[in-house]
């Protein structure tokens, strides 16, 4: 039986269809989870996709982090279930306390949509299929993608090998230390601003580099089974 990966839809979520497609392309079953769900239907991992959940009102990700479905997601993540937050999903994971730091407005104060090169810098549940140091090309598309944290937190993330993705060129959004994505201490929860789910097919994206995140977690899930 193939792995089952949940994809959450909040009101205002936009990239849920893309995340579900990426899950399917990787060979897993995509399970739709609704923001009001309190049961994760026994999924093996969860993707929190991008968009503007609840219109980004109050603060990007703040309301979604407190929605019914996030309770069981946080519980499961603390028990080691792999969770991937992309863009707004990354913001939600930070707001939910699963990842440190915060995402604030881009330094240029404008939305940025462009293909970008990232360096994979850590071996996690979502990057185990990549050689550390590999460069991948995926789209970045966000207005509030600048990762910030205090110096101590940044040093800790670097020291513990939890900077998972770094912009290969100076971060266009002004992210501190060019950080594009980070992980939890156990490497099971990963959040990143760029969109690997938009890079799974050269027909519709810059290539298929992004698929590696989804096949990585499948490898981990299968190995654990």
């Amino acid at each position, binding site marked *: 039986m193939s792995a089952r990966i949940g994809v959450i839809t909040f009101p*205002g979520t*936009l990239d849920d269809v893309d995340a579900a497609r990426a899950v399917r392309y990787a060979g897993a079953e995509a399970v739709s989870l609704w923001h009001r769900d309190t049961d994760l239907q026994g999924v093996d991992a969860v993707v929190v996709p991008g968009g503007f959940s609840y219109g980004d*009102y109050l603060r990007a990700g703040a309301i979604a982090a407190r929605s019914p479905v996030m309770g069981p997601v946080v519980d499961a993540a603390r028990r080691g279930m792999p969770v991937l937050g992309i863009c707004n999903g990354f913001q939600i994971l930070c707001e939910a306390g699963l990842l440190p730091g915060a995402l604030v407005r881009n330094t240029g104060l404008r*939305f940025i949509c462009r293909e970008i090169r990232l360096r994979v810098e850590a071996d996690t549940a979502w990057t185990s299929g990549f050689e550390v140091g590999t460069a991948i090309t995926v789209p970045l*598309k966000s*207005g509030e993608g600048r990762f910030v944290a205090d110096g101590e937190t940044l040093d800790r993330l670097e020291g513990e090998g939890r900077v998972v993705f770094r912009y290969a060129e100076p971060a266009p959004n002004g992210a501190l230390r060019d950080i594009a994505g980070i992980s939890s201490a156990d490497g099971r929860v990963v959040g990143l601003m760029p969109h690997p*789910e938009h890079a*799974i*097919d050269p027909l*519709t994206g810059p290539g298929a580099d992004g698929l590696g995140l989804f096949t990585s977690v499948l490898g981990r899930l299968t190995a654990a089974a």
Partner: protein
Amino acid sequence: MTVQDQATGTPSLDTVANAAATPEHEQPYAALGLRDEEYARIREILGRRPTDAELAMYSVMWSEHCSYKSSKVHLRRFGETTTEEMRRHLLAGIGENAGVVDVGDGWAVTFKIESHNHPSYVEPHQGAATGVGGIVRDIMAMGARPVAVMDGLRVGPLDAPDTARVLPGVVSGVGFYGNCLGLPNLGGEVVFDPTYAGNPLVNALCVGVLRTEDLHLAFASGVGNKIVLFGARTGLDGIGGVSVLASETFGEGGEGAGRKKLPSVQVGDPFAEKVLIECCLELYHAGLVVGIQDLGGAGLSCATSELASAGDGGMEIDLDQVHLRAEGMTPAEILSSESQERMCAVVTPENVDAFMAVCERWDVTARVIGEVTDGENLRIHAGGEVVVDVPPRTVAHDGPVYSRPYARPASQDELQALTTTGLARPVGPAELAEQIVTLASSPQLASRAWVTEQYDRYVRGNTTAATPADAGVLRLDESSDRGIALAIDCNARFCLLDPREGARLALAEAVRNVAASGARPVAVSDCLNFGSPEDPAVMWQFAEAVDGLALACAELGIPVTGGNVSFYNQTATTAILPTPVVGVLGLVDDVHRAVRHGFGAPGDAVWLLGETADELDGSAWAGVVHDHLGGRPPRCDLAAEARLAGVMAEGAARGLFSGAHDLSDGGLAQTLVECAVDSRIGAAVTLPPGELDPAAALFSESAARMLVSVPAAAEADLARLCVEVGQPAARLGEVGGDTLAIDGVAPLDVAELVIAHAATLPSVLDA
């Protein structure tokens, strides 16, 4: 019972009974934009004076924006020139919210382009944002899922002070709304011209996809069926061109002096619209909707009168059931409010509960506000009284129609006599190279990445091409290889020189851009932006452009499926360049075979399809190098355009092309530069054979031309295809290297071209 204002005890409602009893009551019809004879006609229709609410409805629905009273007599040309053969694939055409084209396999595509010009000048961000929101709801109202947007933007000169306010605001508005809705933006146009400085144009296109069985049309039929208003609450915002409605002098309702007047530009909430889209689609798929209408300009006045007018009975509406966001709104204000993100549905009584349950799931507020009756009139109640009792057709469709005087201005001859013949042309390799770079880095032709990088093009995962490609290309659905291509175009400089030929050229360019992807053009939507219809010279431009476009569509066999007219685009007495923007929809049988933008692989041959004549009048070269606009536009040969499009479609199907890019603004020179820049590779080419001097060969903007890249193995096949159909073609050279080497021109370093092309907009807009 008469509603009493609690504070004063005076009647606060102008009821039908009250109107009948007080024929002499003076009404502010002129301030609402109605002429004496129009007001007299309303009294004649009703056999009494209108109530305040009725006057509000007629005045907005009979406005130029809603009634097309100045353009109607000309727009008939589109219907007259559309043959049965052209209608063959149309499931809905002009008159519906948007045209719908059957594309096969049970799929249909609907698209429309619409203007939001004046609001975008007053408040660029919200004006542009709600322009996107409005066109998206038009597409939803056809039963379709909106799948992409495009936008055509026209503003003053790049370095004009107000451009720094208008352009960034408009772009952030388009991006904010579209990005939040999760609709990929495929690109469009950004044009700078002094005539747009006080009157920018924001034209937004939306395309939607549906299964043919899900097609929904706006009509209210079936006695007893319920009218449901759902979505955002109705407020005092956007009581637009009739903002006088919010003044204390109109009626005695409301809260008197000190009442807050909200801006006439609506404020958009894309999150509410995103939720509304998903809610509507779930309602459609569950079969819970009989008819549907979006609420845009003229709000409930428009939605109720149009639904009732298109149905087979009357309609009763109770304004007390409308969910409001302000207190004490008068019936006239409720009917005229242009609050965004609202829809109106016709639902059978037995489906109302299920309808409400879907709305509840999406946290969308919905209320039954009325029902279809077996009467003939649209009757609207408020406070238990009848405040509107009108034949709906007289509001929605039987507005005034004017045959405005039009005349070719005497200045047109002078303008056409002012040709480019005497302008100094560049000679020698260095000067030619210098002017190529000057053009490529001019505001007119520089990279639009500053704009398009603020738009999400990836969301939903079906975008296979977007700007800077000539056409946006979308896969219809993951389960299918079918796709669509879209382009919007207008060279308004050509339209000033000759509105008829200019409109034909706009169509030709949009067709060519769609053809560049290998798609077959199938349908047209237009957005006709002009100055004041009360100026006979402007009206002449309009009449010429419409007739020219209608005949050109007939010649190409592709129907106009809908669109929009925007008049009064002028600053004092100076009208904008006549700007009939044309959107063309094309079909792609297999998105994997769509032709890529730009140059192909190193070693591939570079071919020029089409013939180049010495046509520099109105060109970007004349404008940028000499600040000149005069003469006659390039000749538009639609048979040549159709032949070229045929070669592109056939060549794409056979896999002959590794890249393509049309020739338009800036001519061959600019196309070569853009191919090199966008593909990050050089080429070595000669100029096309013939008698032309190098400047004409490089900068002429002759139509019906395309630059294609062809793998060596496919060259013989392409040559045969061109001979078979009589397509003029010339092999210019090969792709490769780090320089753009044009015979007779100093070599141009691709990396330097990339920088020159990219730097212009940021250098001004980020300064």
